[in-house]
């Protein structure tokens, strides 16, 4: 059971206090978008064996959504940050790169 720090209220929250929301930083495609873009937005999700950016909600706490940068293999958490951003903050990217110099950077929810 994971522990993630809620960046809003500062609580180290057990996974049972949280609600997972899947891949972070998806770009929404609405009316006017191509079938391909819309399909990617709706259905295609990254499932990496390694560094992953995820959405979580502190549902049994302050109720806020936040993002977590996490390693799906080692369970290492590189950091949590505001959900109100289009991409991971520099500090988070640096924390990942420090551990994994070969890491190629986040996949930003563009068509894959």
């Amino acid at each position: 059971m994971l522990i993630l720090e809620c960046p809003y209220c500062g609580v180290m929250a057990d996974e049972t206090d949280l609600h997972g929301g899947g891949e972070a930083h998806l770009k929404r495609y609405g009316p006017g978008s191509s079938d391909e873009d819309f399909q990617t937005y709706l259905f295609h999700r990254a499932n990496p064996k390694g560094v992953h950016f995820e959405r979580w909600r502190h549902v049994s706490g302050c109720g806020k959504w936040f993002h977590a940068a996490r390693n799906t293999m080692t369970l290492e958490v590189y950091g949590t940050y505001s959900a109100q951003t289009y991409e991971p903050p520099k500090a988070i990217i640096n924390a990942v790169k420090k551990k994994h110099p070969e890491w190629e950077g986040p996949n930003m929810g563009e068509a894959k």
Partner: protein
Amino acid sequence: MSTRLAKGGRLIDRTKPKNFTFNGKRMKGYEGDTLAAALLGEDQMLVGRSFKYHRPRGIVASGAEEPNALVNMGQGGRFEPNQRVTTTELFDGLACTSQNHWPSLEFDVGVVNNYAARFLPAGFYYKTFMAPAPAWKHVFEPIIRKSAGLGKVPTEADVDRYEHFYHHTDVLVIGGGVAGLAAALAAGRSGAKVLVMEQTHHWGGRAPVDGGEIDGQSPDDWTAATLAELESMDNVTLRTRMMGSGVYDHGYALGYERVADHTPGDDRPRHRLWRIRAQQIVTATGSIERPLSFAGNDIPGVMLAAAVRDYAVNWGVSVGDRTVVVTNNDDAYRTALVLKEAGLEVPVILDARDQATGPLAEAARAAGIRVEVGKAIAKVNGGKRVTGVSICSQAGEGSAVEDIACDAVAMSGGWSPVVHLWSHCGGKLIWDDEQSHFRPDPDRAPTGHDGQSFVVTAGAASGAMSLADVLSDAYAAGQQAAKAAGGKAVRKAGPKADPEATQPMAPVWIMPQGAGHQKRMKMWLDYQNDVKVSDVQLAAREGYESVEHTKRYTTLGMATDQGKLSNINGLAILSDALGQPIPATGTTTFRPPYTPISFGAIAGEARHEIFQPLRRTPMHGWHEDAGAYMEPVGHWRRPYCYAKPGETNEQAVHREVLNTREKLGLLDASTLGKLIVKGPDAGKFLDMMYTNMMSNLAVGKCRYGLMCSENGFLSDDGVVARIDEDTWLCHTTSGGADRIYAWMEEWLQTEWWDWKVYVANITEQLAQVAVVGPNARKLLEKLGGMDVSKETLPFMQWKDGKIGAFDARVYRISFSGELSYEIAVPASQGRAFWDALLEAGEEFGVMPYGTECLHIMRAEKGFIMIGDETDGTVIPQDLGLNWAISKKKEDFLGKRAQLRSHMTDPDRWKLVGLETLDGSVLPDGAYAVEGGENQYGHRNMIGRVTSTYYSPTLKKGIAMGLVKHGPDRMGDVLSFPTVDGSNTEMKARIVDPVFYDKDGEKQNV
């Protein structure tokens, strides 16, 4: 025979006898006995039958690894099958029965499977599934049903209680043998907070049985002194009867404490599940001895060598008068020496190695025990009990050179560390050639949130095999864990033992090495599931290369012991058959729990009324007092109907419909979701959430709205009221309030976070009552207060004011088609308001109505219901709700998806009304069929019933359904096959879904 020795037994108190029964037979043991020790003390070696062949099964082990000795325990509300006798403490009055046999343990008909063994090879079940269907139904299934299944299913509810504990600690030590205690000592001395758990009720593990000296003391004395030191530390918590069940992400662990299994009915909780968060975890889980694979190694009386020793030393029980020891390592010699010292006979030690030169072998020879090297067991003689062994050369094919009479065989194939807890959360293993076992690889430990290791192994669990190595490894593990958890450095030295000289073990996976098929068919790997060496070899021949596939194909290691004994031996056989080294084959995955834990412990306190918190409306108590028949709606309980004495529920529902249509009905609508959406951007936001326009709704007015998911599917509906310039109140379905509230928050926080909108869920702040029927206005006018006339408060408008003495918000909305007011009052006033309406309404014929009446009235009006007409695949366009989908708006959730080709397909099933030709009621969910077959060979389905009722108003069956091209087929008659076995079809005509008052004359008054 097995028997109680005249003396000995370090764990039992002979002054405290305990009476128990096995299969009704009265037996006696002592305090401190396990049930296994007590059974063996009474010469009950035969305790069950195997799963597939129903072969006689005896006790093999002395601990958690026991595969055979499972019994039905207890009676009535304390009955539980599959209880392991080796881990069951004896108590007065214990009653158990053997399982998996018919009609009796001694004489079992199912043993016929044994003679049919060649018809039940590896993969039997899978191969059987490929057989023609009739053979399956008439031949295989009856046989399998008869022979499958372990134990009996309890028939009564569990009378015991269970609980959860939450615990945080710096260091968790799992295992209370000398390794666990040494690790705890190091961690405790560092000042770290330490929890130590031991699965049995005694400390010290098997060191006191195996002998040696720790710091000049016997293991028992050292254990006592160490416990005293640990108990004196405030930072150390010690628990026995508590098993480390699992290790999970980020230092989470479960401890399974069997508080009162040995004192049933003493009013303590039976089991306690400890939910532990530890900075560091030390697994001092010991090691498990491996069996040897020789023909007849499953005959009762063949046991693990260390178990034979345990029974003698711990419980003063001899498993046999004459015990042949067979081994590939030094440790089994300890068993021979213990037995000899107890005055029992050891006719021979068969050592598969070419020589036996270690000090233990020398000691055995000095004690006068015959030692044969390079020898093996060709086969074990006996049926329900060992009568002797034929011995042969290990190097050959098994020609017997001598028969030796004996009634027990003590075998040892070496030791495997218990790596389960290490592996649960990702710890990796390496193959140790010297010991022929997998052991934890300290360089690839489970990692925590910081990417650092959080599990360290200690003692035999690390692969340390001598007492000296165990102690130094464990103390270092404790120091390491304490340091990582923030404890201070420990300077004091740890416990020490003298190094001992040993002769290396030799891997022996088949005995004898050249055994032919006849012998390999009788070499059991998995005793409980009847998997033999020949089965694994067959699987390999049939192409099973992955160990995970072989496991499932053969069922090796899939029994309740999860392969604790069979795993490594099976891997070795598979690797040999595949011609590859064992580490290339790898292991199967270790998953929690370490041994089975009770469902009660998992559930904890969450039973009965606190299983799930119940939500009650302010009027809930009134409904209960009125004898309402309640139904669950989300976490709420809502009245389904209010049956009067002598009335069936169906009659009550029909009465409620007619009374509401003709006079006056009251519905407790408090469960309806109520969300306040407020802010400068609230209108813009609601235009995204709803398919229709909400920003242009005038203050004071109401509008019915639909919400879709981004997939385009209809998700919720309800009436929205504009409260003021920047405030809207959104009604959701009763079950949808929390979901829709979360949905709105998600979009506001993660997509449109710069929009100025707040959402508040005020569902429980208000009590809401629907006052419905031709007399509704008369009742409100009688109570007095605000003007509720048609002119002042027309349909689809709302007003704040007073109804009688109550502060009220009154909505002119209708889900029934009648003149209807939905009135919200503060929750604290709900019950009083309800009472006032009932009292004042008496002269107008008021009656409360329930959810079924609500459903019928809405179906008569053709109103859809989320969850009936929708199922997550239905879009609003399917339901003829295009009028509620804005064409002006550029965007709303679901709009893009509703443009996808499948969503605009003219062949989508669409909503229609259905009316049977004979007035009967269509079955819910019935399918309409028409001409031909689909690609599955089923009759072509062209629609299905989504809502169906008997309409008391119209005195006939009415239904709604989704039908292909339905709206274009008005008047067509469809066929609905029944599923009651009568092979008949019902006929129904497609009609308008609005059955009642199509022009809305009744509600617009």
